[in-house]
């Protein structure tokens, strides 16, 4: 009989996933934004 992750584990999985995804997205956006700000106008 399958014993999937507990509710607490699921909560932590969701939280870590969102945190890591936001980190990746943040690095991507921040990187382009900093280049835009430094670009000559």
């Amino acid at each position, binding site marked *: *009989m399958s*014993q999937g992750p507990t509710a607490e584990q699921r909560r932590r*999985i969701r939280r*870590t*996933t969102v945190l*890591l*995804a936001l980190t990746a997205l943040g690095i991507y956006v921040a990187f*382009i934004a900093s*280049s835009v700000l430094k670009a*000559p106008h």
Partner: protein
Amino acid sequence: MSSTHQHGHAAHDHADHDDHGPAKGVMRWLTTTNHKDIGTMYLVFSLVMFLVGGAMALLIRAELFMPGMQLVDPGFFNTMTTVHALIMVFGAVMPATVGLANWMIPLQIGAPDMALPRMNNFSFWLLVSAFSLLILSLFMPGGGPASGWTLYPPLVLQTGDAFPLAIFAIHLAGASSIMGSINIIVTIMNLRAPGMSLLKMPLFVWTWLITAYLLIAVMPVFAGAVTMLLTDHFFHTTFFAASGGGDPVLYQHIFWFFGHPEVYIMILPAFGIVSEIIPTFSRKPLFGYDSMVYATASIAFLSFIVWAHHMFTVGMPLAGEMFFMLSTMLIAVPTGVKVFNWTATMWKGSLSFEPPMLFALAFLFLFTIGGFSGLMMAIAPVDFQYHDTYFIVAHFHYVLVPGAVFAIMAGVYYWLPKWTGHMYDMKLANRHFWLSAIFVNVLFFPQHFLGLAGMPRRIPDYSTQFADWNMISSIGGFGFGLSQLLFVYVIWKCAKGGARATAEVWDARPKGLEWTVPSPAPYHTFEQAPVVK
């Protein structure tokens, strides 16, 4: 009676739901969320990409067999060097280690599956889409990307209609890698068996955990860089165009801020595989487990502060050259710790030389050669001589082929009986090893001499003074390429049948949770979490 029957029927249905095997037909592979299926798909995909990228390498070596232009025009030659590299890095080596991670991490930490099984499936199919696009870009007007895998502007901006396809392919492959990394991190951090503390995890799991963090940190940087290339090409921005006040050297800094950690993204899982195999076939525990973990983390940290050693010749302040020279040399310390620990593990061990151990030993010797040539290039004034020569080609191929690829092959030979339930043909696997080990040196060692003599990389024609070593290198290339057909045959034959493998597979009594489940590993494993003492 009726009620009991209904109850029993419901219970039966429920059990069917929980203990079902794989779906039938092609839908199994399209929709699977099982980590073993997805691991298999990643491994098969990487093998196909290895053969496609290998065929491109053979075309390159065939052109370089003799001075003069033989087979392809220079533009197509440049496309081949570019796409060969992109396919081998992002399509062969990385997916192979992701495939091994998918198969082995849940088994090694006692988890029933990856934490995010649907995203796991999506990551894989995104990768397939990415490489379909990249390969299709070869057929666009103007040919495929031809600026080298570094995609330096302004050269890359001259790519024809293939440009947006290649950039989109890189974005998709990057998104796939990031999703795969998130999955690996959340799985390791949340689904370890009770009692398995971080410092009880197998080294392969540790190296992948650190690799996954590296990927999340640097893949968005590369994605940002290629997005800016895209806007420079289509929306007339000038991030990297000097004519509009931009800076092409900025791209090089950004690329190598991603590119150097990328090297460790490929090699750290290889370290993990070798750290599993050497103790097993030495019949001793790994020497210095804790120091191996800290060395891996140190290498990962240092990989962020060495990037400009790839670009000493663009010109930078002396202090910058000194910093990047010394920080690069510092990487030799944790790497030396690892090589020392693997050697110390074998010291006075009861060694046996099954195919995984042979490949792991070859890794140890030949990766170290690649490491030493890397140290030579870290010396800034000397690098001015080596830069953009075949010495560089020899260096990184030693790190990636008898380094990363041999470790992956060692891992496949180590765990294949666990996956298929059959032992493979040891005699053929040994032959595959010896042919590969000999030909890989015939292929790449002469390239050191060519580079030191001044032969530049990425050229389809060369001065006659380089003819002899090029011919030998090409012979080695064809020998190595053909030897890999033996690898494919051994795997295919093992998947079809063979002597039954026991749960432990190897007489050497390997340690770890993956060896406690039967061979082949059942479709669902560790539905009840094991307890680790």
